[in-house]
């Protein structure tokens, strides 16, 4: 290809920090959005996008990395973090009607954003969000967009020497390691094995202040409010119960026979 530049969309999510206690609240048992951060697993998707962009000349050569998020006003922080790390520009889909979206509604809205942007060669995501942890959205997004799906990639390369961009990825299963190939455009999710994400540096943080974040509403991307949020979701959480703390166990300090005591414990539990 004469022009090897890539137009990459990276999906990012603003999630409650798992280092603190997280709580489900309200009638819909939704997650309390306190002490939030960019979902850690999205950093691998951002890194994969930046590496691909840089390998073919970066922004100067026409490569673009757009960080997309959906969520309330505060969620724009995830996009801003992506811009500090190095994304070119940001998109924030925000609409009250989105609240309570399950994977089906989320993938519907995000697919509409990707279509609205147009000309996207590669949609990159993390392997899961660190709050919902379902990993459903990348596969549903690929299905909705009618694009090839390469998920849980532990490595990703794009070859642009031929007629089209061709992505090659590795996926590690339990029984097989697979090498997968797809012609772009495609949806790719990467694992935490794919790369080592960079941190934003001072230059990146300053540069991010000048970058554009486009705010979008559902009306602007042509999505009916009733097709997303609580109303458009196909699942409902009827009840939520905090798991009881495990009762304190027996802790001993080894004074030479802890291995024997361990076996005594297993025998008493009928686990031998």
């Amino acid at each position, binding site marked *: 290809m004469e022009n090897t530049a890539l137009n990459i969309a990276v999906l990012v999510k603003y999630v409650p920090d*798992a*280092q603190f206690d*997280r709580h*489900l609240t309200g009638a819909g048992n939704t997650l309390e959005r306190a002490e939030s951060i960019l979902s850690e*697993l999205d950093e691998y998707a951002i890194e994969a996008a930046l590496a691909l962009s840089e390998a073919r000349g970066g922004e100067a050569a026409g490569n673009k990395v757009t960080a997309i998020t959906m969520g309330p006003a505060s969620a724009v922080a995830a996009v801003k973090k992506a811009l500090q790390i190095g994304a070119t520009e940001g998109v924030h889909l925000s609409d009250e009607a989105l609240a309570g979206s399950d*994977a*089906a509604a989320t*993938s519907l809205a995000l697919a509409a954003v990707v279509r609205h942007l147009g000309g996207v060669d590669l949609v990159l995501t993390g392997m*899961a969000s*660190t709050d*919902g*942890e*379902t*990993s*459903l959205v990348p*596969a549903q997004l*690929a*299905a909705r967009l*009618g694009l*090839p*799906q*390469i*998920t849980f990639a532990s490595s990703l390369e794009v070859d642009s020497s031929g007629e089209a961009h061709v992505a090659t990825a590795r996926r*590690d299963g*339990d*029984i*097989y*390691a*697979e*090498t*997968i*190939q*797809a012609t772009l455009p495609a949806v790719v999710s990467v*694992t*935490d*094995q794919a790369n080592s994400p960079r941190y934003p540096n001072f230059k990146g943080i300053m540069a991010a202040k000048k970058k554009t974040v486009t705010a979008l509403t559902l009306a602007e991307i042509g999505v009916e409010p009733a097709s997303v949020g609580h109303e458009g*979701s*196909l*699942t*409902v*959480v*009827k009840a*939520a119960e905090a*798991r009881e703390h*495990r009762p304190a*166990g*027996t*802790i*001993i300090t*080894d004074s030479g026979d802890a*291995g*024997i*005591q*361990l*076996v005594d*414990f*297993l025998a008493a*539990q009928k*686990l*031998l």
Partner: protein
Amino acid sequence: MSAVVVFIDQTEVSTSPGHPVLSKSSQELLTLARLAGEPVAAVAGEASDELAAALGGAGVSRVFASSQDELTGYLVAPKADFVAQVATAAGAAAVLVGNNFEGKEIAARVGIALNAGVISDAVGLTVADGAITVQKSVLAGSYTVEASATSAVSVISVKSNSVDAEPAAVPATAAVEQFTAEFAPASLGAKIIERTPKPASGRPDLSDARIVVAGGRGVDGNFGPVEELADVLGAAIGASRAATDAGWIEHSAQVGQTGKTVAPQLYISVGISGAIQQKAGMQTSKVIVAVNKDAESPVFEIADFGIVGDLFDVLPQATAEIKRRRG
């Protein structure tokens, strides 16, 4: 009774010794399917006589099987097309799949194909008046929620060890029907160009093992004592991310947020501090034993039995003691 389609993947059969023709997790799915309705099997790959007999024993009378090349030549999407089309053909009210990476993705795509709600990471299900309610643990095991699909069909991916696999009270005779799925062009977009089998360990599969012995940073490159204890217990071997990142053991052994979630009868954590990412993968285990040099390790907060000590002393002693007691 409405049909409940269970996806049975015979294209990726485990090479572990003594592995039954119908995997343990498939037997668990069929046990749950019988609770929810009439179990119908969607078999990718060959439905041998032996498999049909095992399915009959699990109460399955209808089997839809496909050995189409696309099912193994491309990633995930063709399997999802197959399952969705079987569900439609069988008039299914629910679809059950395993909860490994591929199972979740099949569930995700079947959900889109059937405009059905998808619930992943299920640990149980109950049925009242024909409606299925799913129990799942969320937020790294800190909450248990009850969820259900509001659509005509429920698509559920179920974790291993969520139920004791049992044969049907009344066995059925499984009639195998060859099924030809139609694949959308985009489903044939991600081609598998190479597939390398991983060496068989000879140990149980980590995802559905009854006992797991897992090592972390504390093993300092030497998994020997962990392996020896695992082998006398007939256990699978797990690892923390620190241990897999260090290259001491392969990544597929990782237990935790970005690895596997396990819920065995017994989890023995060795030289693992027990940060939230690790706990996420194991804290619903029935019994947790921890061995760590550092008395302040968070893992001791969730351990039923904890030993503050050197794993290189404690593990060999325990291994020798188990051998001695068994004579």
